[in-house]
């Protein structure tokens, strides 16, 4: 991603609030990507929702990725509905006078973004793949549309902007010699009755040993062609240090949890490497993976539509190709001494 020629001083001085995605005290990678992206469009300041303020390694990481200040809002985001999250975020927007807010583009955040933009009168862009400034300092976003077959560049014409960025859109980069950010606490009272809805119950899914699907640099996906046996898919994912994904057919069949579904009605992924095995490449599935860096497909039908978008296609049986690939990857790694 490039920032345009010479962003005006006003633009580079503008506070850009970055809502930090974190798991307990661990900052998740997409938050670091957002901070990196924010540096190209202004002066990033982090917003941390959580019982405790970030400290130690978490605070340092936010600093090394460009956050000059961390705004702490003492509420548990897991206990809030989207309208309430927006209400809490408004406290930070008002306190800083920030005109731009960046979030990670999850379903929950898209809803919170909508409420926040509604109240700020802001322009709203979700599932963005990049942000930059035009020569006049206006915010420009890049998005993929129509199952990744089109690229849109849009300018935000409102004074405020709320942008939800996809994970893996911008690689996280550190700033040399960045100081540990200052933490500013803001009083918050989350109105339990925004709109009158209540969160009756929230069950966190157990954290997997594998990287999370949206954040992973490598995703190995199984479809109907696995016939229900995901072991070869999982094994290759582990050999590559990747996450496991699935098509809707595979999740509907109950072969793997619904949270693994990639596509228009599931998770959107943009890993460096996508491997699809026994996946036909239906448009609904493509919508969630077509912006991946390199696409590899293994399918025994040479006519499968996924071959139209694959960088590397293998017409073959996944039950032989996957284990062979995994074994060879492990062997090559051992050979190069990084096993």
């Amino acid at each position: 991603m490039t920032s345009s020629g010479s962003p005006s001083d006003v633009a580079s001085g503008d506070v850009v609030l970055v809502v930090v995605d974190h798991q307990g005290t661990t900052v998740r990678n997409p938050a670091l990507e957002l901070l990196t992206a924010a540096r190209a469009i202004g002066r990033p300041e982090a917003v941390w929702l959580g019982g405790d303020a970030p400290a130690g390694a978490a605070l340092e990481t936010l600093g090394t990725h460009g956050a000059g200040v961390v705004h702490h809002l003492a509420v548990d985001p897991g206990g809030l509905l989207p309208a309430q999250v927006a209400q809490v975020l408004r406290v930070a927007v008002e306190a800083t006078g920030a005109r731009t807010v960046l979030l990670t583009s999850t379903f929950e955040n898209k809803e919170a973004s909508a409420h926040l933009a509604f109240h700020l009168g802001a322009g709203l862009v979700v599932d963005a793949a990049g942000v930059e400034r035009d020569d006049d300092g206006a915010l420009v976003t890049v998005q993929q549309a129509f199952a990744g077959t089109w690229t849109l560049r849009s300018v935000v014409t409102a004074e405020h902007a709320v942008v939800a960025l996809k994970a893996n859109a911008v690689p996280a980069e550190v700033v040399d010699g960045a100081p540990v950010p200052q933490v500013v606490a803001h009083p918050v009272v989350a109105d339990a009755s925004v709109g009158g809805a209540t969160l009756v119950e929230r069950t966190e899914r157990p954290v997997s040993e594998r990287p999370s699907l949206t954040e992973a640099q490598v995703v190995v996906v199984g479809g109907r062609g696995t016939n229900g046996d995901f072991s070869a898919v999982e094994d290759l994912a582990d050999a590559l240090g990747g996450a496991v994904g699935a098509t809707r057919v595979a999740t509907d069949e109950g072969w793997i949890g619904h949270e693994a579904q990639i596509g228009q009605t599931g998770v959107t992924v943009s890993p460096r490497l996508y491997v699809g095995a026994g996946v036909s490449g239906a448009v609904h599935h493509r919508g969630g993976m077509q912006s991946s860096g390199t696409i590899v497909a293994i399918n025994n039908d040479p006519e499968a539509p996924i071959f139209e978008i694959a960088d590397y296609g293998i017409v073959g049986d996944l039950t032989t190709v996957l284990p062979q690939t995994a074994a060879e990857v492990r062997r090559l790694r051992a050979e190069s001494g990084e096993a």
Partner: protein
Amino acid sequence: MKIVVCVKHVPDVQADRRFTDDGLVDRTQGDGTLNELDENAVEAALALAEAHGGEVVALTMGPADAEDAVRRALQMGADQAVHVQDDALAGSDVFATAAVLAAAVRRLGEDAPVDLVVTGMAALDGLMSVVPSLLAAELGTSQATLAAELAVEDGAVRVRRDLDDATEVVRAPLPAVVSVTDQSNQPRYPNFKGIMAARKKPVTTWSLADLGVDAGAVGAAGARTRVLQATPRPPRENRVLVTDDGGAGTQLAAYLVQNRLV
């Protein structure tokens, strides 16, 4: 119960979808359909009306063709339909869309209050998934979105929603806005009887003036974002297709290493 179900007319996902030179979704190809995910919304609305009694009104905002979307909802079993159509709406963003849909819901509530607004989880053209939240904000009601399961009981709607890292149960007192996912039900297919009956069902057309919405606040003029450029993605280069002769897995591993993907 009075239920309004919002349905959108979108270009068929299986067709060659395009943007116009102005960066708007090209809706002139004539291959538009009811947004597939709104079939789930219609199904949810019909099932609730069947279980609790009441009426289902299908609501759409869009150009002339959009009437097809509410027609399809009528064929599935909705009782009546409203089509908001006005030249000033071209180029509307999600805020204008929500404001106009909310104005139509309020107008529909003048004779008997609307208890529930049901929407799909996303329109398959823009895939924003934000109109339901904006509708709730416009109407000042509670929301229970992305329902994989829903039920109305004790004057509230209760939904289960599956998010990336958690599953939630949300209770929203009526009136409320709910959006439903494609996991929530299996949409019924209109039968011959339904198709015939739909011909006699009323479709009311409202303009912005009918709704008292200021034309300057909607359409391209009122939009808070403007598309600068829409470009088709160039085809991927250097694509390789091999047929497994027994060593394709080994070759793939070499390719991955060569391209520093491992």
